């Protein structure tokens, strides 16, 4: 059976997709869909960068710089965002697939396809957040899909506030979907698979919270 990569179907019709992918002998349209994902990612990150999302720590330079310098520096930051738009899917799709390939017995190509489907969902979340941030005058710590807001009322630590703001409804959805796919593909214990997935996401949240916590500008 030949499996045709269809990302939206992977999210909306998980049972069918899982069945088809499980019995797949060959895969088509992988390259095209991969390129498409990279392209989308680039666009979404560039749009976020255009609005200056995530540049709070740089904004204070506005008082020291001339208008031209400020805008020129912002263009560099936007370039950085676009680079992230390429790095981010690479890590999420290939590196994560590698991790799950090591801890499970699933073929690498199938893991890549699952990661691609999940990355589509990541992009949906990011896209939704852009207008929310701009229109509601909020930053990533006040992501209304996350636990970040409540944590601001409870916690004092900036690091943990960043961490909780990474934990969103979408992340839960992604974990659930990933578990849904991987538990059928793997021969291993379902709980072990779930543990691996949760550990992976916990690690990414900690890393992202850490990146938000350290101010890169201070070190370089």
């Amino acid at each position: 059976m030949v499996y045709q990569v269809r990302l939206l179907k992977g999210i909306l019709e998980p049972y069918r997709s899982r069945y088809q992918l499980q019995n797949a002998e060959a895969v088509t349209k992988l390259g095209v869909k991969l390129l498409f994902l990279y392209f989308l990612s680039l666009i979404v990150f560039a749009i976020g960068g255009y609005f200056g999302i995530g540049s709070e720590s740089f904004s204070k330079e506005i008082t020291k710089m001339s208008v031209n310098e400020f805008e020129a520096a912002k263009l560099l930051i936007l370039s950085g965002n676009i680079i992230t738009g390429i790095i981010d899917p690479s890590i999420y799709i290939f590196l994560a697939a590698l991790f799950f390939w090591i801890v499970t017995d699933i073929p690498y190509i199938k893991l890549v396809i699952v990661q691609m489907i999940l990355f589509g969902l990541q992009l949906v979340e990011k896209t939704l957040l852009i207008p929310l941030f701009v229109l509601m005058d909020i930053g990533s710590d006040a992501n209304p899909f996350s636990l970040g807001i409540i944590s601001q009322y409870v916690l004092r630590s900036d690091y943990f506030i960043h961490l909780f703001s990474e934990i969103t409804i979408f992340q839960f959805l992604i974990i659930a979907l990933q578990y849904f796919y991987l538990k059928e593909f793997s021969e291993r214990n379902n709980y072990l698979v779930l543990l691996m997935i949760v550990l992976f996401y916990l690690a990414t949240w900690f890393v992202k919270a850490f990146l938000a916590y350290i101010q890169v500008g201070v070190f370089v």
Partner: protein
Amino acid sequence: MSGKWKIAAVSIASIVLITVNIYLIEKKESKVERTVFVENWTKVKKDTITDTIQTKGVIKPVEEYDIYFDTKKNDFKKFLVKEGDSITAGSSLFEYTTTELDALKANLEAEKTAAEGEIAGVEEYIGKLRSYQGTLTSDPEKASIDESVEKNLNIDITTGSSDLIKSNIEQEMYKQELEKNSLNEKVKMLDAKLSSIEEQSSAIVTTSEADGVVKNINKNLNNPIISIVSTNMAIEGDFSEEEMKKAEVGMTIKASSSDSKKALKGTIGRIHSYPAEEPSLKKDNRFPFQALIEPEGEETELLLVGSKVNLTVITNEKAGVPSVPIEAVHYQKQPHVYKLTKKGYVDKHYITKGLKAEGKQEIIKGPSVGDVILMEPNVAVKNHSYFITPIQFEKVKAATYKKFTSREKVRYLLLGILEK
């Protein structure tokens, strides 16, 4: 639990979380940190703010003199200028004679005639005396005396000795000579008077008091018989009631017309404090004013009377004061602006307002020159919010990158790659 229940439970949980989150963000005194999306921002500039009145005016001569003529007492002779002639101060305008002088002349002439008649009488009398004196010496017996002479002599010829008579006649002749001399002096005096009157009445001329152009000559001799307008041009217009509150004599004006490229400069010379037409409730009352044009080479002389000009009256001007666009100033009890601070926050700053004109607002007290001010924030954001700004691509210049060190370039790129 079946699949449907799971989906429902997750959905409800999600909706509850989102609702709670939005409530926590938007409630008053929210603890949630905000990041304001600042679309437009500006720096406080050192600027000149000029408050003006924009109005229209028309070019007219500065002044108009009218010359009056009394036809009852004077006789008009002729005009010495034509309409449109340009004249200087002292130029003759017209000639006339006065009827009073004519009467005086006639009197003097009569007096002169009378005096001359008297002289003739005296001379005749002296002649008679002389002939009597002659006959008396040659033949005293035959001497007959004129009766008129005898009366004057006051002596009795029949009784008096001839010597007495002789001396009497001598005396009388001296007296008469004296009389004649005095009469001659009188005639001379009258002649002098007459000739002086003659001189005056031949050409009494009215002259102009100032430079100008003859605007109008009234050939029917109705007053004013001549109107003269000055060559200096002024601008006339009128102010509305609102503009009157701001306008003052001495304010600088700038005028531009479609004909001349060069703008005219000047000052307000006169403002009427009474409206042009009777004050009325129904109409907008207009107060006329006149602005004097500063002479500036030949340009001003070429001004055509009646040209329409657009007039800018500078009512207030402040140079080198901190200013922000008026859209950046917000009102909620007190005027305030949102300043972007060095620490990366949006902070509310109360200001004391100064002059407001041309879309600019002077700041007397508040942020100083160079401070970054947020334009048009949509929401009254929480104090100490972070802010982000979109890129303005048109302000990015390739040359600017030469100013950055490579360390800085790497730093900004890394900021974009790593920071969330």
